[in-house]
C-alpha cells in the first residue's frame, strides 16, 4: 500500500512540474477568460439548425431572436420578390406568414412555428391574468390495464389510479423526454474522460523518455505502478463527480455509486492505450476511437430511459432515474455496473502482465501486438485453465462490443439491422473463443488435434457459462428485450448451444492450426456458419 502511495505522490509532483512550471499567470488568465467567453456564446447561440433560415419581416412582427433565423427587414413588395427568387425562406408581414411550396421554405415555417409558439406564450402570459392566459389544467392519471377494478354496485365510481394525479398545463409542460437529463448525466462523463486522457499521457510520457523502464527495475510490482499512477487521477475524477452532483442538486452518495464503476471502466480502457501504442499518432487515433465508442455506449441506451428496459445497460440511465427521483433496484444497478467493474478487473490483470519492457518497446503491427498481449496473459497458467478463464472473462467486453454494434446497425435499412447485428456478433464471439487457442498454438504450446479439440471444448464451456451468467442478470431486468435473447442465443437447453459453440470453435481453430488457413479466412468461414446457425435458432428451428 505504501508503495502505491509513493508512486501516487510522484505522479502528482510530475503533473505539478509539467503544468505549473513555465506557464505565465497572464497567459492562464487570458486562456480562462477566452474559454469562459466562448462557453457563454456557445450556450446562447448553438442549436440544431443554426443559421439555416432567412426570414424577411415587414410591419409589426415580434423580434426574432433565434440562431436558426437570420432576419432581414424588408417592405412587403420587396419581400415577396425575395421570397419568389428563393433569397429568403419565409416572409412575415404583421400577423401573416408567406411561404413557398418547396421543402426548405416549409421547414422554415415549421421552425418559425416552434419559435412563435413560445414567444406568443410569453406575451400572453405577461399581458393577461394567469387564469385567462392559461385556462386549461390536465390531470394525468395512470391505470393498470391488466387489473380491472372489481365492479361494485356503485356505477359511477372514480377510476382506480395507480399513481397520484399529476396536473399539467399543456403549453407549459413539455411531454416527458429524458433528453435533458441525459445531457446532465453526460456532464459527469466528460471530466472523467478528460482526466483519463491525462492518465494516458502520463504513461506515454514516461514510456517515451524511458523512465518507466527505471521504475520497472525498482522493487515495485507492475500492479503497484499502475494503481499508484491511477490513484491521483481516479480521486480527482471522483471529486468532479461529487462536485457535479452537488451543483446539480443530485444525491452525492448515489452519484458516486453510479459513476464509480463508470470511472473504473473508462480508466481501464485508457490504460490499454499506452500499452499498445507505437507512435504518437497511434495514441491520438486510438484515444479518439475509444472516446467515441465509450460515449456511444454510455449515451445511446440512456436515450431510451423508460421506453425500453434495455436502457439499463448504460449507467447514465440510472443517473437519469436519479434526477427524476424514480427508484431503481439492485438488479438495475448491477446490470451496467457489473460488466464495467469486470472489465476494469480484466484490464488491471492485462496491465500487470503487459507492463514489461519488451512488450512496451516492441514495434510490431497492431494485430501482432494484440496476439502477444493475449499470449502474455495466458502464459502464466496451464493452457486448459487459461483458455476457459479467458472465454469466461471476456464476456463483458463481448457484451459491450455487441451493444455498440447494435447502435451502429440502427443506421442500416430496417431489414438489414438484425442480420448485420447477428453477423457482427457471430464474428466477435468466434474471435474471442478461438484467439486464445490460436495464439497458444503459435507459441507451440498447443500442437495435437486432441489438445485443440479439448481446448475448444473448454473455451466453448467457459464462454457458455459466462454468457448464461450474464443472461441471468440481464433477463431479470430486461424482460421485454428480445434483442438480448437473440444476441446471446437464449436457448433453453444448454446442451445444444454448448455443442454448437464447441463445433464452431474447433472448426475455426483446426482450419487455422492444422490446415494453415489464414486466421481471417478461418474466422470468416466460422462466422458464416455461426450466423446461419443463429438464423436457424431465431426462426424457431431449435
Amino acid at each position: 500500500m505504501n508503495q502505491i502511495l509513493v508512486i501516487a505522490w510522484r505522479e502528482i509532483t510530475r503533473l505539478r512540474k509539467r503544468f505549473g512550471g513555465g506557464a505565465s499567470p497572464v497567459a492562464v488568465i487570458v486562456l480562462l477568460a477566452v474559454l469562459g467567453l466562448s462557453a457563454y456564446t456557445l450556450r446562447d447561440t448553438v442549436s440544431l439548425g443554426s443559421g439555416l433560415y432567412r426570414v424577411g419581416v415587414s410591419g409589426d412582427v415580434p423580434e426574432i431572436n433565434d440562431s436558426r433565423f437570420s432576419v432581414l427587414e424588408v417592405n412587403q413588395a420587396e419581400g415577396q420578390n425575395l421570397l419568389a427568387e428563393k433569397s429568403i425562406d419565409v416572409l412575415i408581414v404583421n400577423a401573416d406568414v408567406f411561404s413557398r411550396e418547396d421543402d426548405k421554405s416549409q421547414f422554415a415555417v415549421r421552425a418559425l412555428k416552434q419559435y412563435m409558439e413560445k414567444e406568443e406564450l410569453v406575451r400572453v402570459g405577461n399581458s393577461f391574468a394567469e387564469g385567462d392566459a392559461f385556462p386549461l389544467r390536465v390531470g394525468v392519471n395512470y391505470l393498470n390495464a391488466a387489473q380491472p377494478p372489481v365492479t361494485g354496485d356503485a356505477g359511477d365510481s372514480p377510476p382506480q389510479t395507480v399513481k397520484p394525479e399529476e396536473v399539467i398545463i399543456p403549453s407549459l409542460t413539455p411531454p416527458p423526454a429524458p433528453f435533458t437529463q441525459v445531457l446532465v448525466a453526460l456532464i459527469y462523463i466528460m471530466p472523467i474522460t478528460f482526466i483519463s486522457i491525462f492518465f494516458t499521457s502520463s504513461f506515454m510520457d514516461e514510456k517515451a523518455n524511458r523512465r518507466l523502464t527505471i521504475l520497472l527495475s525498482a522493487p515495485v510490482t507492475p500492479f503497484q505502478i499502475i494503481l499508484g499512477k491511477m490513484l491521483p487521477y481516479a480521486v480527482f475524477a471522483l471529486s468532479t463527480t461529487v462536485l457535479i452532483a452537488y451543483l446539480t442538486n443530485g444525491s452525492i452518495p448515489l452519484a458516486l455509486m453510479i459513476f464509480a464503476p463508470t470511472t473504473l471502466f473508462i480508466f481501464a480502457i485508457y490504460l490499454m492505450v499506452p500499452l499498445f501504442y507505437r507512435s504518437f499518432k497511434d495514441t491520438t487515433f486510438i484515444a479518439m476511437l475509444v472516446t467515441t465508442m465509450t460515449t456511444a455506449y454510455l449515451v445511446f441506451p440512456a436515450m431510451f430511459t423508460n421506453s425500453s428496459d434495455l436502457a439499463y445497460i448504460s449507467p447514465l440511465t440510472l443517473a437519469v432515474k436519479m434526477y427524476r427521483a424514480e427508484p431503481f433496484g439492485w438488479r438495475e444497478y448491477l446490470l451496467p455496473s457489473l460488466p464495467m467493474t469486470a472489465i476494469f478487473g480484466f484490464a488491471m490483470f492485462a496491465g500487470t502482465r503487459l507492463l514489461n519492457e519488451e512488450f512496451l518497446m516492441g514495434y510490431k503491427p497492431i494485430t501482432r501486438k494484440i496476439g502477444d498481449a493475449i499470449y502474455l496473459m495466458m502464459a502464466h497458467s496451464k493452457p486448459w485453465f487459461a483458455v476457459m478463464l479467458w472465454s469466461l472473462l471476456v464476456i463483458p467486453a463481448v457484451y459491450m462490443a455487441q451493444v455498440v454494434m447494435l447502435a451502429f446497425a440502427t443506421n442500416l435499412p430496417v431489414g438489414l439491422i438484425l442480420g448485420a447485428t447477428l453477423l457482427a456478433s457471430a464474428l466477435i464471439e468466434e474471435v474471442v473463443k478461438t484467439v486464445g487457442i490460436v495464439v497458444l498454438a503459435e507459441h507451440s504450446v498447443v500442437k495435437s488435434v486432441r489438445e485443440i479439440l479439448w481446448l475448444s471444448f473448454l473455451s466453448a464451456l467457459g464462454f457458455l457459462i459466462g454468457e448464461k451468467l450474464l443472461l441471468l442478470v440481464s433477463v431479470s431486468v430486461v424482460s421485454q428485450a428480445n434483442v438480448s435473447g437473440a444476441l446471446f442465443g437464449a436457448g433453453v437447453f444448454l446442451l445444444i448451444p454448448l455443442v454448437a459453440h464447441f463445433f464452431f470453435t474447433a472448426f475455426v481453430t483446426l482450419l487455422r492450426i492444422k490446415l494453415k488457413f489464414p486466421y481471417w479466412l478461418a474466422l470468416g468461414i466460422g462466422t458464416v456458419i455461426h450466423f446461419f446457425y443463429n438464423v436457424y435458432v431465431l426462426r424457431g428451428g431449435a
Partner: protein
Amino acid sequence: MIHPFFAVVKKELGSVMKDRTIIISILIQLFIASFSSGLLLGMLSLYDADTIMRFSGAGIRIGVVGDASAPLASLLTERGLNTQTFPTLTEAQSAFYNGDVLALVDAPQDANGLIEVKLYLPDSDTVSSLIRMVIQEPLKQYENVLRAERGIEVRYTDLNGKPATSFEFVYSVLIPMLMFFPAFVAGSMSIDMITEEVESKTLQTLLSAPLTISGMVGAKIVAAVFLAILQCSAWLLLMQMNGIEIQNQGWILALALVIAGITSTSAALSAAFLQDRERSQFIYSLLLLAGVGLSTGLNISPITTLSRLAVGDAYTNGWNVMIFAAVFAGLYFLLLKVSRRLMI
C-alpha cells in the same frame, strides 16, 4: 531528385498509411455519422409527434367521454388520432379494460373558472409516453380555443410547415461534422508529427537535410491537410450517393481546406511553444474550443458558413471563405516567425 520538402510530406503520408492509423480515423467518422443519425432516428421515433403519428398513429386509439363534436374531441380527431366517444366515464373505462382503447380523455369540466381535463393513461411507460407525445399538440390547440373564448388572441397559430428536424440535423450537424472532423484530426496529427521529432531527438538529423525548420513544419502541415481534404472529398461523394443534396461543393472543399490549415497551423504553433505532446495537445484542444466560441460570438462561425454554403444560401459565397483564408494566412505568418523555437 525529389525536393526535400516533398520528401518529408511523402514520409509522413507513408507512415500514416503503414500504421493503418488513418483507418481508425475513418472508422471513427463513419461511426459518429451513423451513430448520430441512428440516435436521431431513435429520438424521432420516440420524441417527435409527427414521426410517431406517421408510423403508429392509426394504432393509437383514444376513448373520449362526451360529445364527438365538442372542441377537444374534434381537435383530437383532426390530429389523425383514432378516437371513440363514450357517453360516460364508466363505459369508457370498460372499453379501456377490454383493450378497445389505449387511453381515456374525460370531458372538460369547469373548476373555479379553469377548465379541467382528466387524462387516463396505461401504466406502461412506453405507451403512455408515446400518447403524451401525440396528444400534446391537440391539447395546446384546445388551450388556444379556451383563450379565444376569454377574448385572448394568440397570433401565428395557423403555421404548419414540414417537420424540419432531419433537415436541420443533416445541414447543421452532419455535414459540418464530417467536413471539420478531419480538420480537427489534422491538427492533432501535426502535433504528433512535430513533437515526435522533438521528443525522440530526430529533429536535428532531419534538419541536416537541405531543409529549413519552417520548411519541415510546413511539410508536415501539408501532409496533414492533404489527408483531411482526401477524407472530406470522400464524404462529399458518399453523402451525394446517399441522396443528400449539397450546393457550392467547390467552396465547401475550399473552406474545409482552409479550416484544416488553421487547425494544423495553430497546433504547430502550440507545439513550437510547448515542445512536448502532452501539453501541446491540451492547449490545442482548448484553443480549438476557444476558436469555435469566439467565431460564433463574432458571428462568423465556420460551422454556420458551411451549413449555409451547403443549403445554397443566397447571401453566402466565396467571400465568406476568404475571411477564414485571411486568418489562415495570418497564423501561418506567425508560425514562420516562431518555428525556430523548435531548434532550441
